[in-house]
């Protein structure tokens, strides 16, 4: 047996990248609620998208006239632009309990409210028209998207759709500096510290790997190439039974905050070495309506002392070395799953990018702040990386646009269920997963090779 070599002191430097947060549009600090209704945000959305679509349809079908819905003439082919509304009979309606007709309604699956009889309606300020024909499939679309339709009005008063035009991917800014070295960004979501399904050892392993406390020099070298960490929602789960609106007993108060305290300890371990973003999710102690505001810094007394710690909004947009990231904690895609269908989460994500809107179902079925002057969920510049957290499984693909845009779509699985974190290479936008498990392994004897 050879003598053990004493390792020489060697400092491995972590790589660095420039970070810029672009969350200003999701901030509601300066918004004042004056009793406005959601018609304002719908107007801002329709007008912005319509101006854009009017300029694009001239290239799509130059010889077909454009008109408003009220200006439709029977039999005349034209293009109309408006907001889609999907009439769904299974969609839960608050007025159902007051309905006098108590017909036997079959028990609704809470997962998805689709029905074969759903139909689409197009609406603008002048009026609305029911959409017919087979080109537009109601199962693909949801209320709130803005599209241009080519077709004609029928004798029945419906609009027979001949062709659909979506805005497509937004223009993308080419990143200025193409780095030649590998730099990695780690995405985790659904850590759910404090829940019964989360394994604290798994999370500790992840933290140790990122901070370089795990493994030999080679593995530490790999960890040193991690330049940024993003927690995409649902980092904490407080015992819900306690939060029922009643005053908390003093012994319960500590239980509620336990989970956040543990999260803070682990986050401060990460923040000590690498910049970390934490986004709120549906279970986190943040507001309900989108855009969710950053988790209060008072929750993280340990982590907030580090300037590498950023508490961010949901949705979150930032730039790292010129590469643009945009992502949410999953509420937008989860809502799309309830009201439409697609092959997988990546297809829903692709649709939101093509409709240029992060959350088209907001405010219809997804809680949203009633903005008056703008719709902050409109995607003006196409990101290079688009991520969604708290999904059931991992998925990734490159989406190409008609003007050479390239987007890496990432569906981040829940860490508490899968033990998977996603790692993205900034140099070539390739993705792989990091898997953490804590299973007992069989003992090996020294004689094994």
């Amino acid at each position, binding site marked *: 047996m050879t003598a053990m070599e004493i390792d020489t002191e060697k400092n491995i430097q972590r790589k660095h990248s420039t970070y810029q947060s672009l969350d200003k549009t999701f901030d509601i600090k300066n918004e004042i609620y004056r009793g406005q209704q959601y018609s304002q945000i719908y107007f*801002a959305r329709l007008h912005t998208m319509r101006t854009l679509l009017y300029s694009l349809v001239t290239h799509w079908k130059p010889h077909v006239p454009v008109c408003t819905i009220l200006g439709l003439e029977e039999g005349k082919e034209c293009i109309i632009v408006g907001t889609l509304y999907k009439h769904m009979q299974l969609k839960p309606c608050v007025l159902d309990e007051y309905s006098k007709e108590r017909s036997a309604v079959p028990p609704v699956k809470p997962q998805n409210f689709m029905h074969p009889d759903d139909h689409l309606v197009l609406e603008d300020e002048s009026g609305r028209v029911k959409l017919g024909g087979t080109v537009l499939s109601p199962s693909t679309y949801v209320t709130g998207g803005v599209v241009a339709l080519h077709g004609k009005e029928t004798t029945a008063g419906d609009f027979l759709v001949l062709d659909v035009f979506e805005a497509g991917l937004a223009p993308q800014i080419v990143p200025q500096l193409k780095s030649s070295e590998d730099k990695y960004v780690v995405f985790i979501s659904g850590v759910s510290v404090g829940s019964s399904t989360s394994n604290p050892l798994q999370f500790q392993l992840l933290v140790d790997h990122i901070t370089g406390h795990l493994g030999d020099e080679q593995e530490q070298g790999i960890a040193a190439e991690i330049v940024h960490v993003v927690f995409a929602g649902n980092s904490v789960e407080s015992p819900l039974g306690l939060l029922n609106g009643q005053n908390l007993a003093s012994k319960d108060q500590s239980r509620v905050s336990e989970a956040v305290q543990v999260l803070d300890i682990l986050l401060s371990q990460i923040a000590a070495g690498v910049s970390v973003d934490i986004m709120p999710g549906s279970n986190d102690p943040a507001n309900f309506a989108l855009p969710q505001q950053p988790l209060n810094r008072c929750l993280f007394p340990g982590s907030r002392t580090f300037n590498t710690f950023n508490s961010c909004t949901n949705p979150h947009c930032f730039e790292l070395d010129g590469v643009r990231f945009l992502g949410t904690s999953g509420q937008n895609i989860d809502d799309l799953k309830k009201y439409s269908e697609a092959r997988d989460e990546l297809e829903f994500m692709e649709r939101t990018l093509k409709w240029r809107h992060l959350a088209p179902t907001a405010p219809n079925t997804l809680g949203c702040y009633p903005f*008056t*002057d703008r719709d902050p969920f409109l995607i003006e510049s196409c990101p290079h990386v688009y991520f969604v957290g708290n999904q059931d499984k991992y998925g990734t693909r490159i989406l190409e646009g008609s003007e050479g845009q390239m987007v890496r779509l990432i569906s981040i699985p829940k860490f508490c269920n899968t033990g998977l974190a996603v790692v993205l290479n900034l140099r070539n936008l390739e993705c792989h997963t990091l898997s953490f498990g804590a299973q007992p392994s069989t003992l090996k004897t020294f004689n094994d090779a």
Partner: protein
Amino acid sequence: MATTPSNMKGFYRLKKNKSGITKPTSSKKSSLHLVPSLGSDITQLTALISHGSPDLKDYHDNHEELMRQFDMNMAYGPCLGMYRLARWERAQRLGLNPPIGFEGLLKAEKVRSECWWDGRI
């Protein structure tokens, strides 16, 4: 405003008595306490009476009339729940070219800052 006729009968539409069973009618007609008469201000819409006196000043102000047209114009979007200046700025930003003079009026506070329906709905 309708002219008040001297003949009260002409004001209300008269109904024919139903043939057959007639109920005994009281000598007094069931009274409508808002009885219009010459010179009374009851014919004014109650909405225009605010702070105890008829809101005549706003109604006849030309600038306020222009702003009311701005509020009602559908092209600039819904008006309820927004300050007029915020709505004007939104219209400007979306490229709708709202009349430039309105910005001056609103900033000089010559007209109400809230829309016509504010507080009335």
